[in-house]
């Protein structure tokens, strides 16, 4: 052994490791085979229980460093930037070969999320989808976003990222790469609208009205259609026909039947109300965020307003009959259209009030901002005559107002070309109506998302800190009221590959049996896979067999009454969140950080299944005696959280579920010591404790 140590010391010193490091390695590795392997140069790392981490030996460290350098250089070839985000998805670092040289992206990216400037162009529903993925700690690839570079030019980037976790498997944020894909996007856009570009290029003449300056990298797509789930969108696609709408074209006149609906891509349609003897007044503006022909969705097939194309561009057209059919069929389409109608109503209401009460200058600012939102462009072409129509004022009023905004350097306005210079400033100059209208456009999707994704689906599974392995525990079941022994049992746990099967059995003196089998996986997070419970015998009000599968959500509850032997079977499927932890709540509790709260889900069988939230709340420390030695145990209260309706019914029925209690010893390696609570619905509180085998006297 002595000579072995010498050899090791010599090896390590050759590898330039300090004497302290060697000593540490020697202290850690006491086993013969391990030391031999180190001497033979076959070991990369040594585990250090004190720090809970792995110590790399010098040779391995050097090799990994080289490896990382290679990966870095390959990465530089395939992407433009590497970035890292904190837990709240804010950028904390953003580095890359291109960041200095090409002048893209201001330093302002640090501290911003993908939703904030300089990023742009993520619709509310896109963001919702992305945020949900982030909450689930998913990896995302090739998320394409618009963004403004330092020179104020629009660019496209493709972002990919993966979550990062620390040694305790706590979520630390995201890291990933970003590529500049502006050139590709630009060519895609050009390929998409050949007709429009050809027309512009050939004639070279400027069309009157609002004309959009095609911004480099802009994707021409209707936002309402884009917000639909892929499946629904595909269903619509066959009935959609791309058309070019030109300035001055009247799509509908009031009282005329609606033959088509239009989903603008990059054109702008104005909805006008005509009053006899006066010029038409704009009551709504539809751009890429919506559709023209909402009356159809409301069950009317005649138009109520004049729909006038104010900005030439493309749109997707669908005939009225087809739209009615698709609208009835597709729930997401109904949702999106309703949201849009709501926004338009708010816009009409607000516009009416605004035109009556607010100054022309503020109204002009509002109108420019609304147009900007519709077109998603800071520049457009329009004439004073047109603006006067839109705002319902005389032409002189418009030019005075425009001059005032220009003097405040909020816009530039030369020969019909308007450019918004300071969006924030323009918002301040506009009347409050703009905010109201915009809020009406933005808020409902979030609300809808909340309805569609109720709380359970947001639940995050609990990370694995201590993987479960083979265990055989001896258990006692006592009455919590008088501590009388009720049953004895076993906890039998085996790990097979990545799966763990955990079985808890209690045998009662009268032959009753309570037998629970849970299969779960522990890859980074705990995931319950299946749950099976059998309770038979006179101890229980009725014999019950329950099975539940997490992935499919399928459940089966079979009950048999003791009195008449009548059987009942309940079958069905529930939507189960990833943190449904039937049967392994205690395992999960062992993996919580000291003092941490956690909310998980369990399916309670009453006998009908109910998905309930279960809150694990640390409620102080107790001392337990192991031999003569006292050890601290954390007391967790497991509180079932019922929704308001369930709560109401539970109260009505007098069946509010009681709290459960669990005690976990957490000195370095956690261990379960006690559980208290009913084992079946409306049952008495029982206590599960550990015991050691005794020798019969």
């Amino acid at each position, binding site marked *: 052994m002595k000579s072995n140590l010498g050899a090791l010391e010599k090896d390590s010193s050759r590898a330039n490791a300090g004497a302290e490091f060697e000593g540490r390695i020697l202290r850690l*590795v006491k086993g013969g085979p*391990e030391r031999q392997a180190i001497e033979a140069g076959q070991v990369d*790392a040594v585990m250090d*229980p004190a720090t809970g981490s*792995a110590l790399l030996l010098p*040779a391995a460290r050097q*090799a990994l460093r080289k490896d990382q350098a290679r990966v870095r250089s390959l990465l530089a070839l395939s992407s433009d930037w590497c970035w890292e985000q904190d837990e709240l998805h804010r950028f904390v670092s953003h580095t890359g070969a291109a960041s200095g040289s090409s002048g893209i992206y201001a330093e302002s990216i640090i501290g911003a999320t993908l939703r904030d400037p300089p990023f742009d162009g993520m619709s509310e529903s896109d963001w919702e989808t992305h945020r949900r993925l982030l909450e689930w700690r998913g990896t995302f690839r090739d998320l394409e976003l618009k963004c403004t570079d330092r020179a104020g030019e629009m660019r496209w980037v493709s972002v990919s990222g993966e979550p990062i976790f620390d040694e305790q498997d706590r979520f630390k944020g995201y890291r990933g790469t970003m590529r500049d894909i502006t050139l590709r996007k630009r060519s895609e856009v050009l390929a998409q609208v050949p007709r429009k570009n050809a027309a512009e290029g050939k004639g070279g003449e400027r069309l009157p009205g609002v004309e959009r300056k095609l911004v480099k990298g802009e994707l021409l797509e209707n936002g309402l259609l884009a917000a639909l789930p892929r499946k629904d969108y595909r269903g619509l696609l066959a009935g959609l026909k791309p058309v070019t709408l030109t300035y001055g074209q009247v799509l509908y006149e009031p009282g005329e039947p609606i033959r088509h609906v239009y989903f603008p891509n990059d054109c702008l349609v104005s909805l006008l109300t005509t009053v006899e003897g006066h010029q038409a007044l704009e009551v709504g503006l539809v751009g890429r965020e919506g559709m023209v022909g909402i009356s159809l969705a409301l069950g009317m097939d005649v138009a109520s307003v004049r729909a006038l194309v104010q900005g030439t561009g493309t749109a997707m057209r669908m005939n009225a009959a087809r739209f009615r059919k698709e609208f009835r069929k597709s729930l997401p389409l109904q949702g999106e259209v309703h949201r849009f109608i709501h926004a338009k109503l708010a816009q009409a209401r607000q516009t009416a009030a605004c035109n009556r009460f607010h100054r022309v200058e503020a109204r002009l600012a509002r109108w420019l901002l609304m147009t900007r939102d519709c077109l998603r462009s800071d520049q457009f072409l329009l004439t004073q005559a047109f603006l006067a129509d839109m705002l319902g004022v005389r032409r002189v009023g418009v030019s005075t107002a425009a001059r005032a905004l220009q003097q405040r350097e909020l816009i530039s306005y030369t020969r019909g070309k308007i450019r918004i210079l300071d969006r924030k400033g323009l918002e301040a100059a506009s009347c409050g109506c703009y905010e109201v209208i915009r809020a009406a456009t933005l808020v409902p999707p979030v609300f809808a998302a909340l309805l569609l994704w109720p709380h359970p689906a947001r639940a995050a599974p609990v990370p694995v*800190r201590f993987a479960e392995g083979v265990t055989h525990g001896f258990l006692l079941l006592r009455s919590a009221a008088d501590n009388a022994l009720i049953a004895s049992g076993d906890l039998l746990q085996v790990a097979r590959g990545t799966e763990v099967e955990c079985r808890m059995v209690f045998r009662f003196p009268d032959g009753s049996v309570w037998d629970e089998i849970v299969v779960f996986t522990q890859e980074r997070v705990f995931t319950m896979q299946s749950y099976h419970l059998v309770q038979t015998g006179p101890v229980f009000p009725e014999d019950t067999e329950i099975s539940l599968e997490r992935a499919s959500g399928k459940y089966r509850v079979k009950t048999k009454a003791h009195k008449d032997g009548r059987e009942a079977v309940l079958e069905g499927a529930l939507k189960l969140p990833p943190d449904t932890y039937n049967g392994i709540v205690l395992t999960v509790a062992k993996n919580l950080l000291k003092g941490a709260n956690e909310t998980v889900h369990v399916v309670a069988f009453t006998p009908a299944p109910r998905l309930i939230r279960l809150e694990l709340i640390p409620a102080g420390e107790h001392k337990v005696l192991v031999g003569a030695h006292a050890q601290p145990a954390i007391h967790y209260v497991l509180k079932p959280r019922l929704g308001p309706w369930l709560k109401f019914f539970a109260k009505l029925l007098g069946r509010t579920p009681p709290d459960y209690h669990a005690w976990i010893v957490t000195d370095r*390696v956690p261990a379960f010591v006690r559980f208290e609570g009913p084992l079946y619905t409306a049952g008495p509180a029982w206590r599960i404790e550990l015991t050691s085998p005794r020798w019969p006297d």
Partner: protein
Amino acid sequence: MRGKKTKRSASSPAVTTVVVMRLYIANNAPNSLRAIANLEAICKEHLKGNFKLEIIDVLETPLRALADGILVTPSLAKMSPSPAAKIVGNLSDKSSVLHALGISVE
């Protein structure tokens, strides 16, 4: 020599039980990579499809290795069939790996 062994193992009775193993490694460190390659070769030759292998990176999940009683990496642990066995190093000594896995090659 190698050819002879292969021939013999092919003629030996087929392995019917599934061998469940865990290999603990340190990312892409040289011995870890060698251990994976060595083990893959052994599994291909002697276990055919009758094995389950989980590779655990101790740099990513050190607590998992500590909980499993691992001291150095690379380490190979046979979980089942019993008896459980453990072997450390880059698994270049084929005969000791086979021995630890309970595969008899005459």
